[in-house]
C-alpha cells in the first residue's frame, strides 16, 4: 500500500474525551503523523498525552473525533490488536521487557502460533526471523542472549523492533509503514544511554514513523521533526522544527504557560550560610565505589555532588543516609563520630533524613496521603503520656502540607496510588517539611515529574534551606544544582575533582 507523501499517514481530528462526565481529559485535539517522521507530543503530567495515546491504541474510546489512515476515514480501534492492524503500536515507559526471555523469544512473544509444525515450536525459524528484522532495522544484538544481559538502551530498541514486528505480523505485510508510540522511553535511561537510543531511532526513521511522548524539552527539540504541545487537554501550539526557529524557552512557555524556572529563581538573593558545622566527612572510602571523599557541610548550606552515572555520587549520599556502609575514614555529625554500619533509623535519630525521587521506593501507595505524611512525624501527633495517635492532629498536619505544596487531591484521606506522578512526589517531599531534620539528603528529588510540580518542590526546598536545614543533593539534572546548591563538588570515578560555586558551575555546564 503506497501512501502519497503529501497525505498524512495518520491523522486524528477533533478528538474529545471526558471521564466520569466531569474530568475533561481531551478537548478538540488534532494531530497528524507523516511518513518517516518523529512527531513529538509534549505537555505536563495530566495534560492529556497519555489519554490521547490510549485512544490511538484502543484502550479508550473517544467521545468525539475522527481518525484517518492514509487519507481514508476509519473507525477508532477498539483494542490494541485492531490498532496494530491500522499500523499503530506502543512501547511503554517501563515494565515492557521480560528479563528472563531470550531476544528472539521476546520479539515473537504472542506470535508463536506462526512457528509451530506438528505441535513443535520451530525455534530455528524464529531465530532466523528475529535475526532478519534486527538486521533490517540496524539493531545490533545476539538473538540468543537474554534480555537482561543487554544494555538498557538496547532493550528499549528491541522493544521498539517488537512493536514494529507486531504491526507487520498483524497485517501480514512486510512493507507496511508502522507508527510506533514511544511513551517517555528515556525515563529509566542515563544520559549516555539516551544519546545511543536516539542515534538508533534516527536510523530507524527510514522504516517507521514515531510519536514521541515526553516532557524533557531538550530531547524533544533535538530529535523530533514536529512538536504538538498539549496543555489541560487542549492543543495549544504546534511547531515544525525544520522550518520554524524556536528556542527551549518558547517551548517551555507553551507547555507550562509561564516563565522558566531559572528565570524565576535567579533573582532570588543568596542566603548567608552560617559557620556552624553540622556534618564532616574525612577521607571516606568504600572500595570500588568512592575514595578519600572529604567535605564540610554548614548549617543551612546545600552541597551538590555532581558527576556522571557510576561516578560514586549515588553511593556517597546513600552512605550518609545509612543505606550503604563505608570502609575507611570518619563521618562526623554535629561533632560526634558515627559508626560505619549504622542503619537509616539510627541516622534519622541523629537528624539525617533521606529523600529519593523514585516514588515507588518512598511512598506507601495503598495508604492515604495523611498516613504517608505522618509516618516520619509520628512524634508530633502522639498524645502524652499515653502514646495514642491523634488523628485530628494528623489531618491538620496533612492539610498544612497539602496547602503548602499545592497537592491536588480531594482530601487528606485520598489513597496515594490515585495521585498523579507530580503529586506523589510532593507527598514524599512534604513529610520532611513537617519533620524538619538537621540535614536532608536529596537524591533525584524531581526525577520524572513535570515543570509545574518541580517549581512547587523547589520553592519548598529553598524555604527549608532558609530555615536552616542543611542539604546534600545528587541529581542527573545539572540545572537542579544551579537552582538549589551553594557549592558543587565534582566527582569522577569515585574521586573528588574540584569544587565549583553555582555561578562557575552554570558556566561550565552551559559549555
Amino acid at each position, binding site marked *: 500500500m503506497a501512501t502519497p507523501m503529501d497525505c498524512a499517514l495518520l491523522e486524528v481530528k477533533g478528538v474529545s474525551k471526558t471521564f466520569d462526565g466531569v474530568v475533561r481529559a481531551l478537548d478538540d485535539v488534532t494531530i497528524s503523523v507523516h511518513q518517516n517522521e518523529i512527531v513529538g507530543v509534549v505537555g505536563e503530567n495530566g495534560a492529556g498525552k497519555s489519554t490521547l495515546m490510549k485512544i490511538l491504541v484502543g484502550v479508550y474510546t473517544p467521545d468525539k473525533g475522527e481518525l484517518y489512515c492514509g487519507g481514508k476515514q476509519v473507525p477508532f480501534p477498539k483494542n490494541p490488536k485492531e490498532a496494530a492492524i491500522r499500523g499503530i503500536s506502543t512501547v511503554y515507559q517501563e515494565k515492557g521487557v521480560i528479563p528472563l526471555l531470550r531476544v528472539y523469544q521476546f520479539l515473537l512473544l504472542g506470535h508463536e502460533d506462526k512457528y509451530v509444525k506438528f505441535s513443535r515450536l520451530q525455534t530455528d525459524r524464529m531465530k532466523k526471523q528475529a535475526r532478519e528484522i534486527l538486521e533490517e532495522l540496524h539493531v545490533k544484538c545476539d538473538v540468543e542472549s537474554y534480555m537482561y544481559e543487554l544494555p538498557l538502551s538496547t532493550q528499549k530498541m528491541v522493544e521498539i523492533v517488537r512493536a514494529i514486528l507486531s504491526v507487520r505480523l498483524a497485517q501480514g505485510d512486510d512493507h507496511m509503514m508502522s507508527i510506533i508510540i514511544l511513551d517517555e522511553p528515556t525515563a529509566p535511561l542515563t544520559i549516555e544511554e539516551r544519546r545511543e537510543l536516539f542515534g538508533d531511532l534516527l536510523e530507524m526513521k527510514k522504516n517507521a514513523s514515531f510519536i514521541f511522548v515526553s516532557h524533557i524539552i531538550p530531547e524533544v527539540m533535538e530529535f523530533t521533526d514536529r512538536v504538538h504541545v498539549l496543555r489541560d487537554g487542549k492543543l495549544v501550539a504546534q511547531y515544525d522544527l525544520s522550518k520554524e526557529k524556536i528556542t527551549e524557552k518558547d517551548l517551555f512557555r507553551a507547555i507550562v504557560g509561564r516563565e522558566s524556572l531559572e528565570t524565576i529563581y535567579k533573582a532570588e538573593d543568596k542566603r548567608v550560610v552560617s559557620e556552624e558545622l553540622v556534618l564532616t566527612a574525612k577521607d571516606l572510602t568504600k572500595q570500588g565505589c568512592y575514595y578519600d571523599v572529604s567535605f564540610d557541610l554548614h548549617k543551612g548550606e546545600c552541597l551538590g555532588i555532581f558527576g556522571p552515572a557510576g561516578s560514586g555520587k549515588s553511593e556517597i549520599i546513600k552512605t550518609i543516609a545509612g*543505606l550503604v556502609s563505608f570502609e575507611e575514614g570518619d563521618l562526623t555529625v554535629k561533632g560526634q563520630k558515627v559508626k560505619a554500619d549504622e542503619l537509616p*533509623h539510627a541516622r534519622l535519630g541523629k537528624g539525617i533524613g533521606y529523600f529519593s525521587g523514585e516514588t515507588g521506593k518512598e511512598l*506507601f*501507595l*495503598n495508604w492515604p496521603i495523611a498516613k504517608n505524611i505522618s509516618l516520619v512525624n509520628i512524634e508530633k501527633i502522639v498524645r502524652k503520656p499515653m502514646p495514642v*495517635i491523634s488523628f485530628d492532629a494528623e489531618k491538620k498536619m496533612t492539610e498544612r502540607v497539602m496547602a503548602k505544596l499545592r497537592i491536588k487531591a480531594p482530601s487528606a484521606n485520598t489513597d496515594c*496510588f490515585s495521585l498523579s506522578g507530580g503529586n506523589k512526589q510532593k507527598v514524599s517531599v512534604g513529610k520532611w517539611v513537617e519533620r524538619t531534620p538537621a540535614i536532608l539528603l536529596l537524591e533525584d528529588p524531581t526525577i520524572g515529574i513535570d515543570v509545574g510540580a518541580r517549581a512547587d518542590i523547589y520553592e519548598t526546598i529553598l524555604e527549608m534551606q532558609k530555615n536552616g536545614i542543611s542539604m546534600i543533593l545528587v541529581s542527573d539534572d545539572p540545572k537542579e544544582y544551579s537552582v538549589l546548591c551553594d557549592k558543587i563538588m565534582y566527582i569522577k570515578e569515585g574521586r573528588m575533582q574540584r569544587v565549583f560555586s553555582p555561578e562557575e558551575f552554570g558556566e561550565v555546564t552551559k559549555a
Partner: protein
Amino acid sequence: MTTLARSRPITTAITQTLKTHPVILALIALFLLFSALYPERFLGPLNFSTILRQFVTLILFALGPSIVIVTGSLDLSYVGIYMLGSVLVWLLTPILGLVSIVVILHLEVATGFLIGVIQVKARIPSFILTLSLLVIYSGLTAYLAGGYPRSVKGYEFITATLIPNLPTAFLWSIPIIAAAVFIMKGTRIGTYLSAIGSNEEGARLAGINVDRYKILAFTLSGLFTGIGSIILFQHHGGSATVELNLNTMVWPLLAIVLGGTSLMGGSGGPQRTILGALTFTVVNRGLVLALLNPEAVQLLLGLLLIVSIVVSSRGLKGVTVT
C-alpha cells in the same frame, strides 16, 4: 432540618464502611438466609452460645497472626505452641500447682521472639519457618505426652459460668481483642508494622528500625496467642491434645482473610479479623445446621477461602485493573 443534617454524615459513614468492609453485607445476608431456612435451629439460644464459643476459639487464635500478616509475613505456629503449652501444663501442674498455666504465656512469647529473630537474621520466608516450628512442636507434644491425650484438672475457674448461656471465655476475649485493636489502630506500633507490610524499603527510608519492629510483630503475636491459649486451654475442656487438627490451623487463617486483611501485608489487622471470625462462624454453623455431611462442609469452606482471597487482593490492595 437538624435530623437531615445529622443523618447525612451517618449514611455516608455507613456506605463508606460497607465499601471498605464488604464482609458486613455477607454477614447480614448469611444471617438472614440461615434464619429464614431453619428458624428454630438457628435462632435458638443454644446456637447463639455455640456460635460465640466457636468465635472465641477462632478469634483468640487469629489475633496474633493477624498482627504478623499486616507486616507481610505469616505466622502459622500458633496451634503448635498451644499444643506444646497444654502438654507442659499437664506435666508441670503436679509439681508447680496452678501457676503452671502461666507457662503457656512464657512459651508463646519466647517462641514468638525466637521466630522473629531467626526470620530477621536469616532472612528466610516466615511461612516455611513457622510451619517447620509447628511440626517440631507437635512432634514434641506427642513425645512428652507419651502419645495420648491428657486431661488436667483444677483450671475450671477460668471458664466458670458468670452469665448463663454466655460463654465466659467470650467475656475474657473482649478486653484481649480491644487491646490488640488498640495497639494496631491507636499507637505508632500499628502504623509502623503496616508501613513495613506496605513497602519495606520505604519504611526503612522513613527511619523505621524494620528488623526490630518485625521481631516485635512476632513477639506480639506470641503474646496474644499466649493469653488466648490460657483461656482456650480450659475452653476446650482442660486437656492436652496430641494430634494436630487441620481445622484448628486453617480456620483462623480463613477468618483473617475473610475479614479482608490482605496476605500481602500493609492493610487490615485485628479489627478486621473480628468480622472475619464472626462471619466464618456463622457460615460454619449454618452449614452444620443444614445437616450436610462434614466433608461437604469442608469443601464449601475451602471454596469460601479462595473467594475471599480473590476479593481481598482485588478490592482492598487498591489495585486498579486496566
